[in-house]
């Protein structure tokens, strides 16, 4: 007895909202990065769920791509965080507010 697709979608939406909430409320850049990962994985869950629903592999393959992308993004993100730390003595994203008009 397979689990119905709707549940997967609900799970994905929940994970996405948690990620979004994290981005909107947290101040630490590391948590930011984690929240972004959550949102990406929410999308992955969607891909896999729909692939299962339609019975083809496209979605699963795509989610592999997303993971590779996520890995790259984390590398860049960590790099940015390191620079942030060096320049602002901390990783609070609200501190680094000089890039504006």
């Amino acid at each position, binding site marked *: 007895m397979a689990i119905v697709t709707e549940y997967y979608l609900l799970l994905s939406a929940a994970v996405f909202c948690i990620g*979004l909430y994290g*981005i*909107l*409320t947290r*101040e630490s850049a590391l948590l*930011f990065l984690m929240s972004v990962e959550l949102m990406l994985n929410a999308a992955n869950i969607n891909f896999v769920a729909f692939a299962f629903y339609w019975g083809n592999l496209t979605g699963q393959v795509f989610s592999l791509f997303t993971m590779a992308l996520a890995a790259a993004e984390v590398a860049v993100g960590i790099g940015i965080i390191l620079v942030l730390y060096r320049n602002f003595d901390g990783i609070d*994203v*609200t501190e*680094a*507010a*000089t*890039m*504006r*008009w």
Partner: protein
Amino acid sequence: MAGAYDFVPAIAALPFVAFLVSLFFGRYMPKRGAEAGIIATAGSLLISVWTALTVAGITGPATSYNENLYTWVAGVGDGALTLNLGVLVDPLTALMLLIVSLISLLVHVFSLGYMNDEGETGLPRYYAGLGLFTASMLGFVFSNNLLMAFMFFELVGLCSYLLIGFWFRDDGPPSAAKKAFLVTRFGDYFFLIGVVGIFATFGTGLFAPLTEGGSVAAESFPVVAEQVLEGEASVDTFGFDPQTWFTILGLLVLGGVLGKSAQFPLHTWLPDAMEGPTPVSALIHAATMVAAGVYLVARMYGFYLLSPTALAIIALVGGFTALFAASMGVVKQELKQVLAYSTISQYGYMMLALGTGGYVAAVFHLTTHAIFKALLFLGAGSVIIAMHHNENMWDMGGLKEKMPITYWTFLSGSLALAGIVPFAGFWSKDEVLYEALIHGFGSAGGLAPVYLLAYAMGLLAVFFTGFYTFRMVYLTFHGDARSDTARDPEPVRWNVKGPLAVLGIGAATVGLINMKPVAELTGAHIDFLHKWLLGPEEGGWPALTSTGLHHYEVLMKDVAGIQSAYPLGETPTLLVSALVSLSLAVGGVLVARSLYGGPDPVEHTDRLGGMKTVLMHNYYQDEYQVWLAQGVTVPLARAADKFDQGVVDGVVNGISSVSLFTGSRFRRIQSGIVTNYAALMTLSLVLLLVVFVVFGGVVN
């Protein structure tokens, strides 16, 4: 095998190379760049001679040449214009190439004496200017289409600006150069509109049809215009009657001609242009620049013949200018000023001839004038060297014994200018007046009175010409020396005397190429220039280029309505006309002799009364043109500026300040805090989703 025609572009290219060489390497040369100019113009002269021989048929059958050499704008699609650079060589071109390269060679040689020996500085710039001037005039002469002619026409104007303003550290020359440039530019403005109009109407600017293997490959605009008038072709005439439209086009182009050839009312730049070095004046007046205008009318004469109105205007302007300028020359005190006004007057004669259908006479006068006016200017240059650059004739006198070569050659030129038999000017001026007279009697409709009026003015100018010319000669060379420099003038060298001798002989003899009265009397066919422009009776180049005299004569009769009539019979009319003009010229000379011929002449200008002031001020031409500029153009420009600053710029500034203001408010949302951006994005996405939900997906 490469014939002469393959080398025609080199005629202009050689002086151009000389321009580059003088400009960049002139300062390393012993003569500061003169060598390059002399070699290049000598080369041009040689190729011109070769070309002329080829055209004449001495090195083979008589031919002409008309080819496009380079396409610089290729039209794509139907009715698109293709702009070419090309070469047209027919007898007119060949003759003019000869004149220009000869005069410019002599001027280069003369410059050695006038500029180098006088220790002038900046000579590479001078010789570079001369080279470019010569190159652009030669390029103008062999242009095969109107646009190319216009481009070189402008180059000529630019070079005259550079050379007139050569002594730019003084006050006079830069202002004279600016004036020359602006006044001719004013005329060229109309010329440009005319060029655009001709291209828009005919789709081509060719002067003569291009032929390939005996059939016409591309028609020329005078021929198309002719076909339109005969109803064989049609062009877009912008709602005008074809003939009216062609008249308008012709008059627009004439604007450029009036500016360059210094015809009334655009003549004011030429006397001021005397501020330039004298060899440059010689070049400007004799061969380049001023000749360009008249040459252009002769070049597209087939087009002007289609419009009697334009012809009448040309004749009237020419006749009036001849008299007008001659009357101003009478009171001038400076040697070069007298010559300047004589130039304006003589070009008036050429315009008179062209306007009255005297094509040969105009070309003849252009030729003889080039020789004798170059001679007179170079002679004046020699006198100026001797007088340590004092040009006032009242400080001269008695130079006859001290500088015999200059005197005799100058006298030859003066006799030619005054039109005394048998010097060059007599034959050509006589032919100009004769053509005006017989066409004045014979032509139909309104042309006849106009021609006769123009003839009368031209005839009266003959007297003035004789007078001012010999006033100049007597004041300069005869009588007692009136200043210390005149008592002990500086000697001149071979490089001054050589060109003078060549031109002095030329001024005495060049009239022999078309002695119409003698030919008429003796029945001998010695009117060589006439035959030169006429070409073979059947076939040959006239049939190919349609620039032959035969063709023009047919057009004159059929389209322009110019006919000849001889009130006394052909030969007597010719002789009487010649006699009248000769006796007027001699009369002028004798009056000059009686007034200024004594050992100690005094000014007689006071006897003119109020006229003297008017003449001294050149009929207030400068004043009224300055008034036009300051009283009309400046307020107009100021009003336009106000409109531009207030309305046009106001709108633009208003728009930009509105966006500046909104921008300054909107940028507040860019706080620099990442969280805010994320919140904004989320909110916008939600909003977008809500919109989609409300409108049910895709909004059409």
